């Protein structure tokens, strides 16, 4: 198993940018808690395994860029993806 740094770093960076924009609206009834992200990570590993070692074909048994992007999304959400602050109501 060979790990190439290039796709891991770029995938993590792109995922991080996307994940940093996950900001729930506190006024909304829709709420996605930590379990959603855990399930997403598990599904991401499964999808990456079935995608196969794309695009290098011989490096790892799963798509390493896909997993890097999934981890990047969760990291971005944890670091920057805080909930939106509710707007102040003028009294």
């Amino acid at each position, binding site marked *: 198993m060979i790990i190439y740094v290039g796709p891991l770093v770029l995938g993590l960076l792109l995922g991080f940018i996307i994940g940093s924009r996950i900001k729930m609206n506190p006024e909304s009834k*829709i709420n996605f808690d930590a379990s959603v992200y855990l399930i997403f990570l598990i599904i991401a590993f499964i999808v990456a395994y079935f995608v196969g070692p794309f695009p290098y074909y011989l490096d790892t048994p799963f798509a390493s860029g896909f997993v890097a992007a999934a981890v990047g999304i969760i990291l971005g959400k944890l670091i920057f993806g805080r909930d939106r602050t509710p707007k102040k109501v003028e009294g």
Partner: protein
Amino acid sequence: MSTILKIFVFPAAMVIMCLGVLTILGGHITPGGGFQGGAMIAAGFIFCLIVYGLKESPFHLSHDFLAAIESIGALGYVFLGIAGLAFSGFYLYNLGVDIYSIVPVFIKNIFDYPDPTHAGIIPYLNFVVGLKVMVGLTAVVIAFMGFNEITNDSKEEAQETEWEIE
């Protein structure tokens, strides 16, 4: 939208986005690249915008974010082009590959892409194009949804004033 869609779409959109990232990462050796991958990521954003609406979408894309990423994408592309011009005399010269051996070795190492193909600046160009396309296509949909809301609000206001007159 139905509850099933609202539960399903957010995780599905994230998986679609990861596939978009994978398309960008394989752009230099397989079909696909910056535009196609960026469009797939934008599809994930648009999927959420359509199902949850502009205000309740889990992905909050502010004007500043869209402007910043669009600028980073464009400037990154220009930077890579000008770097080629500065070190080799050719705009967008692939400094990481350097097929004519006209660039110092340390410059070649800086722009090298660490993978088995050593494709030079091509993956970086795919990356910046992907960023630009991602926010560009999403911004179009956000703008249309914003216009639609304004139009609906003004129609409702017009109907209310008609009733008041009657």
